[in-house]
């Protein structure tokens, strides 16, 4: 059910600094909330987010329960060559999700 929203410019000039915006649908249950009956709701969060460009890691984040639901992360990178961004989210209960986006640099 999970799904990713990625915003990467399709084209960029060589050497340009581009912004990458990512959003992953996820409840990010903190593990600190209780039901009305007093039962603790088990933690279910995304713990790690990685962005690779043509296989090389360019950005990584450790996420904690203090990250809001549907984690939205934006960061920057220099567009040096055309290629593919691969995004990967890893979380509790075996959660893994990937997405990718291509960019052409001229």
């Amino acid at each position: 059910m999970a799904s990713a929203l990625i915003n990467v410019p399709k084209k960029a000039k060589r050497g340009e600094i581009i912004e990458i915006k990512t959003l992953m649908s996820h409840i990010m249950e903190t593990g600190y909330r209780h039901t009305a009956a007093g039962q603790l709701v088990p933690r279910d969060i995304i713990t790690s987010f990685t962005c690779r460009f043509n296989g090389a890691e360019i950005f990584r984040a450790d996420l904690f329960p203090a990250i809001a639901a549907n984690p939205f992360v934006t960061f920057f990178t220099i567009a040096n060559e055309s290629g593919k961004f691969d995004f990967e989210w890893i979380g509790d209960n075996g959660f893994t999700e990937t997405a990718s986006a291509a960019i052409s640099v001229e």
Partner: protein
Amino acid sequence: MRKSHASTRRRFLGLAGSAAAIGMVPVVSLRPAGATPETMAAAIRNVVGTATVQTGKVKLDVPPLVENGNTVPMTVSVTSPMTEEDYVKSIHVFNEKNPQPNIGNFYLGPKAGRAQVSTRIRLADSQKIIAIARLSDGSFWSVSADVVVTLAACTEEVI
């Protein structure tokens, strides 16, 4: 007639005010014991080790007053040329009153171009947030920001 009207209004406002004040108290005390300034200091020690943390270079953008602690936009940026010789290795964000002292760790490299990261965070109470940047030369720089939160996140009941 006019006088009594005014006094009724004044009394009503006074009552309303004190009711609001009483209402505020349990909201704060309901929060279970979580991170404290001490655990935050320990979490920071885990990251920086024995290095001294200097103030400056880092900019932390969070709204000073937040109505809903469940999604608080946050941007951390670091003044750095971001070259192969001088760049930001990582950015770490901490808080002092959530159940856990960590908010997030972000690892960058010289290819980032600009040392800036944005996300949305949760805040369980009005508190201080600290962002620390690790530079490629091994130095640590920090900044803190105070946020007032009206509706707390993380620990509310699930219905």
